[in-house]
């Protein structure tokens, strides 16, 4: 490295992570996965697992006896998860009892069973618990047919969740329809945290966070905004891409896969809508982000939103 002061200047702050000022409201989790390769048994089948593997990786390598649902788990685990929040991936091990496979590191000589009574019960009950806090009007949902929760519920033969579903309209949170690009329906949110990590760890935008606690836990905004449009969102859409349900849906897709039942729409599934003031907003960047972060006038004008998208959400 040169001793030229210019070089030194350019390295200033290199150690400061981009996420330094980001407040995602989530725990500083340890790394998941094993530190060593391992050979283990899953439902009687031998599995060779590489360094960094979890039990879920081992389960996915073979045909398991029980369906390990792993609802909140995300395929790309570089920056997103495993958060191990829904606990629908429980398997039974001889060594540690019932454990969450999505984040439990493989160990040599482990014996894993996916279809024991306690593991199956744990997955079933936890799936029903997630469903109990979910607005199950799938037919009006923008994620109908492309929803992980719907998929695992079908896979797990759920016909009537034991704790019921969220159906009292007065209990539903208003839908945040303020952004012309992404609609938020928190009644569909399973708090898997994928969007928070996509926003903070992948896009490094620092818009979303987990806030409150207990039954009030919800996805919120780091600038304390009430609506997406008041947030610092740049409408990159990554949150909607990783969302396993219809909680975050691109406005253009809100009605894409719903079944045409007259009178029933996604917007009237909840009692309230917030953010209608912003209906005519045409820029991709929210005012808060533009004013907060842009010092100069942009040299390139931003593209208008596609006409079809606008037509769909109006």
């Amino acid at each position, binding site marked *: 490295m040169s001793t030229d002061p210019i070089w030194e200047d350019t390295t200033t702050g290199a150690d400061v992570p981009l996420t330094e000022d980001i407040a995602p*409201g989530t725990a500083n989790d340890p790394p998941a996965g094993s530190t060593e390769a391992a050979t283990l048994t899953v439902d009687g089948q031998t599995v060779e697992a590489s360094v960094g593997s979890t039990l879920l990786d081992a389960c996915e390598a073979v045909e398991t006896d029980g369906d390990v649902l792993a609802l909140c788990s995300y395929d790309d685990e570089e920056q997103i998860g495993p958060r191990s929040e829904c*606990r629908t991936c429980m398997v039974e091990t001889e060594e540690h009892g019932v454990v969450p496979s999505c984040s439990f590191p493989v160990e040599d000589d482990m014996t894993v069973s996916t279809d024991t009574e306690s593991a199956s019960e744990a997955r079933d009950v936890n799936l029903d618990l997630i469903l*109990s806090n979910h607005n199950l009007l799938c037919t009006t949902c923008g994620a109908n047919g492309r929803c992980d929760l719907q998929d695992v519920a079908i896979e797990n033969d759920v016909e009537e969740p*034991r704790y019921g579903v969220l159906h009292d309209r007065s209990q539903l949170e208003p839908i945040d329809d303020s952004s012309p690009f992404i609609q938020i329906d928190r009644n569909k949110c399973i708090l898997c945290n994928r969007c928070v990590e996509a926003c903070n760890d992948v896009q490094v935008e620092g818009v979303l966070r987990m806030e*409150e*606690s207990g039954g009030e836990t919800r996805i919120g905004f780091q600038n304390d905004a009430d609506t997406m449009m008041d947030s610092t969102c740049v409408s990159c859409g990554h949150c909607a891409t990783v969302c396993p349900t219809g909680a975050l849906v691109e406005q253009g897709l809100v009605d894409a896969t719903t079944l045409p039942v007259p009178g029933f729409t996604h917007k009237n599934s909840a009692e309230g809508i917030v953010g209608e003031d912003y209906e005519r907003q045409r820029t991709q960047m929210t005012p808060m982000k533009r004013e907060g972060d842009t010092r100069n006038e942009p040299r390139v004008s931003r593209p208008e939103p596609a006409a079809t998208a606008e037509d769909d959400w109006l």
Partner: protein
Amino acid sequence: MLEAARDADASVATAAVGSTGHVGLEPLVTATLDGETAFFSECSPGRARSVTEALDGGTLPSEDAVAVVEHEPGAATLPVPDEGPLAVGERGVLGSCGWAVPGSIEDYRAGAGSLPTDLELADALSRLRESGLRGRGRGDASADAPVADEWTTASEAAGDPVVVVNANEADDRAAGDDLLLEGAPLSVLDPALTAAEALGASDVVAYLSEDADLARERVRAAADALVEARDPEASLRVVVGPDEYKAGEPTMALEAIEGNHRLEARRRPPGPSEYGLNGRPTLVHTPRTLAQVGRVLAGVDPGGVPADPGTRLFTVAGDVAAPATVELSTGATLSDALPAVEPEGSRKAACVGGVFGGVTRSLDVPASAPGLESARLGTNGAVELVGESTCMVALAGERAKFAREENCGRCGPCREGSKQLVDLLRDVYDGEFADGMLRELGRTMRETSLCGFGSDAARPVTTTIDVFETEFHAHADGRCPSGTCTKL
């Protein structure tokens, strides 16, 4: 009280010490002269003054004293009367509580717990391993598990290790940690510093509740004195977190110390001994554990049963005139703690293990971790007596509601499970007692929750169903046997 004694203008040495653990005796004044100590409970300032004056005059007043004890002159630990509340249990880790000056290095070193300062890691590990000591309290990362395992993992993990004294226990049913920090903080901090030195870390963090003013003041003073006396280079920080039950969970304690924006439990494994404070290998021990560690490392025979050696602190509270914290050998039973308190009314049950403890009719349960666990009770050191007038269904409901409101919100089984638990209990009041569903939910919460909060949260409900099933049926039939649930 101290002012009153000092106002007597006598040439008598006076000192403010910590509690003995017996709240009902307080304000408690002890007067010592030539190997004889008199105890004055519920002492008035006037009486404190007259006691001081009598001492100044060369006599030990004994009139209206609750006890007078003869002992070795210059005794380093509290002389214990033969009978009365102070005679309950034994006073090992509590030895200097209510006797020694909390931040005094001299008083501490005079006690039985003084540690060798040049302990090698291997030696420390072998002493802990041989003792079989287990962690104590829900805030300990090795709660009920061998302490030696935690130390071994931390010593083998990559990175700069750190020791955290987790003293944030918002459940005042378990008062043992605060008692130690207020009365004998050096018996906690010295082993913490020894652990740090043995692991090659010069970093200790004492984590307290923001509301624990006296403990914080005394820990700060004791930490300064200890650092000066042992190693001026050592770092012993005092950090506070919210006075919330969840904030005492070991990983949420780490999150609070790191200053995270919102408290949430961390996923594990790996646990804090591999990935703890700022990702460093971290020993998270409660004051109660560290006090036991100190005795073991000092070469004291911990006593107790081999499966769980040493003593445990139990705070007996609930329907009693005043709570008391006593120290029991793990070979004793919980009922041995009862003479320390004055019960209010006849006892119907007890909830053992704090807000999420287990409900039992009998206290003839071993005071050891395996004994308590096999009786499906909690091990955090709280014994809450429940009188006849308490409705057990309502008690279970209150605990479930607490779980629903206070959980961190991270994992489904705890967040949604506690909500359903409350709803299923409400259904009992509406005539439907779905005991199978309640048990299934309780099992799932216990086995699949991400942290101890969720694992323990359903215990009051499931154990109450086991012990008081008839009361649930009565409620479903529209009747509250104790007559307290008026909305039926």
